[in-house]
């Protein structure tokens, strides 16, 4: 099964594989413009109080993405494999799944 940004938890590191091909052109372009490009590493920094949107660190800056868009971003986990350039060290992060509880909204 494909893994997307939607499936990641706080503290996960991942590499972007692709943006879903049936994404509308304007959404895809927006994501590309903000640096969601193939092969780019990212770190899941946190989720908003209700589990959505998700905040990621990407290309050295912080980006908030709604789960509806996060679902379109296919990723692969790279936990522990490589250091993110410019991202802050992950340190002792508690890994939680907020999202589950709030998915009824």
């Amino acid at each position, binding site marked *: 099964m494909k893994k997307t940004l939607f499936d990641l938890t706080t503290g996960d590191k991942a590499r972007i594989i692709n943006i879903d091909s049936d994404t509308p052109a304007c959404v895809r372009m927006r994501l590309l413009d903000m640096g969601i490009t193939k092969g780019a590493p990212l770190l899941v*920094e946190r989720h908003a109080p209700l589990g959505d949107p998700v*905040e990621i660190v990407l290309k050295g800056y*912080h980006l*908030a993405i709604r789960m509806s868009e996060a679902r379109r971003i296919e990723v692969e986990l790279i936990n522990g494999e490589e250091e993110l350039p410019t991202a802050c060290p992950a340190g002792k992060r508690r890994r939680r799944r907020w999202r589950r509880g709030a998915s009824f909204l």
Partner: protein
Amino acid sequence: MSNNKIVIAGNPNAGKTSVYNRLTGAAQQVSNYPGVTVEYKSGAMRYDGGRLTVVDLPGAYSLTAFTQEELVARNFIVERKPALIVDVVDASNLERNLYLTTQILEMGRPTIIALNMVDAAERRGYQVDIAQLSRLLGVPVIPTVASRGSGIKELRDTCIAVVEGRLDATPTPVRYGHAVDEEVGALIKQIQRHPALSDMGAPAWLAVKLIEKDSAVLAQAQDAAQDAMQALAPHIADATRRIETHFDADTATIVAEHRYGIAAGVVKACVSFTAQARRDRTDQIDKIVCNRLIGPVILVGVVAALFFWVFKLSDEWAWIPWIGGWRSPTGLIAWLFDMLSQFLAPLEARAPMLYSLLDAGVVGGVGGVLNFVPLIFFMFLFVSALEDSGYIARVAFILDRPLRVFGLQGKSILAFIVAGGIGAGGCAVPGIMATRTMREDKDRLLTMLVTPFMNCGAKMPVYAMLIAAFFPGDRILIMMILWAFSWVTALCAAWVLRKTIVRGPQTPFVMELPPYHLPVLRGVLRHTWERTWLYIKKAGTIILAINILLWAFMYFPRPPEGMDETHALAHSMAGRAGKTLEPVSAAAGFDWKTNIALIGGFAAKEVVVGALGTAYALEGQSEENYLSLSERLAAHPDWNPVRAFALMIFVMLYAPCFVTITVIRRESGSWKWAAFSTVYSTTLAFVLAVIIYQAGMFLLPHI
């Protein structure tokens, strides 16, 4: 010099406006780009040899033009062909900023890069090799810290040198790698054969845009050079197809990824990490501010403080020393207009009509406009400080999910709160202006349309009068019901509008959470003053005109001699309209006298109390006397609690006062939405009032 325009372009949060403020003097102009609500500022930069016009373009992440800001920025560069582009690049966020830079360089205009916030980059442990960066991009690079003004002199001097032709700042062509470059090169040759096309902008830029299948550029090219485009179409299609087969992706994606590839390459070549990037201040603050439990509490605190201080400083707290004691800014303005009114008083006996026009129409109208000025000023002061600091982005982050259920977004909350969403007081005028922090047009429009449902300060005298008359024991309960009613109506209306009228393609919500900055006082004050002045200037003229119209509506035609105030009002156009509407409004329990008051309420909702007072023949119609009116209404055989409650709901929801309508027109960019707002809220208010009245009257005998 034929062309003396410098444009400042760059990412949002890169410090573009700081650079602009540092380069230009105090005098400036805010212009609307034709057809869209996006504004840009222009000012003058003077130097020994002359004067340059500096234009601050809206912040953009890209020039692919999916948002209005981007389209405005791009069209400005393409159409006005500025002598120089100053690209403000955030050194602490180099890679993403360079993505825009590649697009700017591609446009082929002379460019200077202002490498801003180099101090923040150093704090985060990066060192940028300026000379190397300049060599790679082919344009001058000036390191700056615009918020402190360092590097600005060098930037000025370089700008002047480029404009005067002493320094070459033409960028080196952007290279996308062999496979793409070959197609671009071939297409450039084709474009150069058609003068109509090569006038549209740099051929290299146009070629890339055509390959990217940029819909806006394609449409423009079709308009400008239909024949040329017809000739070119097969070439473009071939080039696109070849690239797409080569990379197995669509061209727009390929070009974007290559641009990021270039940006990454430049970063690799120019940036050295001098220290291990440590967790900086922003991360530490966000750990608390965006925390799942503490975050919302802080948010409520910040928003409540915003609300408290805006009204405290502008209205409640008398802190300005003045003749006859301390006054609040609003109080001071009221005092000035009182004085003016007293000055006019001798006219009353000699020329009653002129007096009435000047006093009620002109002084009342201008006073009504200026009354809002302190509120707007302080609201903008705090909101722009919050925005500059980076906190507004966190508000949007925390509240996005709950508000999206209703088709709104996190930032909508600011408008609601300022418009009176919590507790008593508030005003829809600054509330609607607070929607400026939203970049998504649809969300913004939706917020503007439902913000007037909040219980603003002007509705309070109406509530107070009716509660005192009919619910003296349940004051707090009724206020709570009204408060909840306004929120539920606003959210439900937003939900329905989103599903019907404000429908459209979903705007992707992909938002940067910029690092926290201490707001620069100078910049915040300047921004605040610009906005306030714009309000005084633009709204003032329209509001004055409408107020005179309303005055005439309640003044003409004059009754025969010897008629008292009540009958004069009944005789006026407003009175006649009130009577004409009575058969309809009776369904909600409103008689013609109430109708007159509600018509007057278009001017400002607190007028309802005064007008009801006049209609029910009272001495002294100001809202301070509401108790006497309350007693009269409580004793009146036509009135009962159900009717009073229906009236309160109607006043809460019906057409926003015309100052609000004018502001909606300004902020939405068209009278269409202002008119829509008036019609739909009045309809909604009437339907709900009828339901409440009819149901209440049916149930009343059974309770």
